[in-house]
């Protein structure tokens, strides 16, 4: 596995600029790359190096950094190696290149990224509504989307259940007894 990783690192670094790698135990290797070379590096991995399977595309919202981290995970059945291609884009102005010409199923991930995180994907195919319907406002998977406030604004509480808003308070009121602090009682 060490030789496979070393070989891959040298090939990637010879073909692309500004790439940093991070090695992990086992069959995982990460590359941090610039957003603009995502389609090229993924095509190179698929066509030239046998990383034919796109396993996953994920996004992590680093709100405090003002960035999204996009993670592409590809797999080579020959090398038995998982390669993570990571890139960061600005939360407000960042644009992601579309890769559905490399793997068709990437389109589904890109549609979800656009809808749930509000990430613009350049050349996105089938950019119509995916999971949400008539959604306006902040995309719901962003860290600054307040789930509780949205639920309070959008839905209503069933009348007659005001006393059950907080189960613990209702129990105290009805039984006139303090309920035990389970967290304290059972903490190790």
């Amino acid at each position, binding site marked *: 596995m060490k030789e496979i990783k070393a070989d891959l690192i040298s090939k990637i670094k010879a073909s692309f600029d500004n790439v940093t790698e991070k090695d992990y135990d086992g*069959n*995982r290797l990460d590359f941090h790359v610039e957003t603009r070379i995502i389609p090229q590096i993924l095509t190179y991995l698929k066509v030239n190096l046998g990383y*034919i*399977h*796109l*396993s*996953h595309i*994920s*996004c*992590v*919202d680093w709100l405090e950094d003002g960035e999204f981290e996009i*993670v592409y*995970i590809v*797999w080579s*059945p020959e090398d*038995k190696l*998982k390669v*993570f291609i990571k890139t960061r884009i600005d939360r407000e102005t960042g644009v992601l290149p579309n890769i559905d010409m490399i*793997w*068709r*199923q990437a*389109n*589904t991930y890109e549609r979800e990224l656009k809808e749930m995180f509000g990430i613009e994907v350049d050349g996105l195919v089938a950019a119509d*509504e*995916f*999971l*949400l*319907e008539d959604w306006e406002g902040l995309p*719901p*998977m962003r*860290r600054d*989307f307040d*789930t509780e406030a949205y639920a309070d604004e959008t839905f209503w509480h069933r009348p007659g259940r005001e006393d059950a808003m907080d189960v613990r308070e209702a129990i105290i009121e009805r039984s006139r007894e303090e309920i035990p602090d389970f*967290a304290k009682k059972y*903490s*190790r």
Partner: protein
Amino acid sequence: MREKATTLYIGPQHPGITGNMMVRLKIEGDTIVKATTEVGYLHRAFEKLQEKRNWLQSFTLMCRFCVPETDPMEELYARAVETIEGREVPERAKYIRVMVLELARLASFMLWYGGQNGSLGLYTMGQWSVGDRNYILDLFEELTGGRVYHMYIWPGGVRRDLPKGFEQKVLKTMDYLEKRLDDYDDLMFDNAIFKKRTKGVGIVDKETAIEHGVVGPVLRGCGIRSDIRIDDPYEVYDKLDFIVPTQEGADIWARALVRRQEARQSIRIIRQVIDMMPGGPVYNKIPNPQKWTLPKGDAYVRVESVRGEVGLYAASDGGLNPRRIHVRGAAYVHAITLLEDVLVGENIADVSAIMNSLGTCPPEIER
């Protein structure tokens, strides 16, 4: 003369759809010329909720991602957390996990037998296989207290050790199910209707499979030998002896033959695991869940479910809650772009059979 195209909506509530989703079909006569999937009917925002819960609380949502297969999701979460934290799992717990995963596979195969035949109007199989599935659920009930949602494989190992005499009960159930699989063969694979309705229908060839990132029995049904348990082994699969069946037909029939053989392999694995299972502890205790933090980092783990590769990406920022949990279901890949392509040129009567054969599970798409 070219026939006028009509639009036909199948779902979101339809007995032939494997959950809440819709397929909008453009048809000429009874031939599909365009298919568009519509999802969004049961999004539960599990991944968002998990960001608001601590690492143990968010585990309880995992088994609800895909109802027919709950245990692979639990195992994924447990292993992702263990990978980020570097937590060791006792050897016995790994064997028990494999036994539970394979029992879950068998239970899911039983549902598939029913669903695949039911989609073609052959209802006897479903009555048999779903009835037999209950014997596996009985085992789960005894082991975990729950029939469908188990919350048994959790970070650090498994929740409790096997009850006394449990292994013998599992072996007895395996003997019974092995005989029943022969009965299923007579009913399903010797049935002329099943053959005629599945051969040459729902073709997914090798090129399409690679282009779409296809996994599991659909990939093996077009002749590509690929299985996460062999290619990227987890728990103790690398110590077990089993085969990965393939077929060349690339149609529903071929995929059914693959699944038929895989069910038998699951029985074989369960017997081996019980034979090889060591003694010892089953749980490497986690700290107080309300103060439990994981180091900053991320992990991507994969498991071989009945529908194929299911993955989970987890990221930790060093805090009490997950920064990100993201499930990659087999259906996420199979039931949107692939389904839309495969349905073109097929007959409207075969839509449900094709969806079943591709392992469509809408709750896994929407999460």
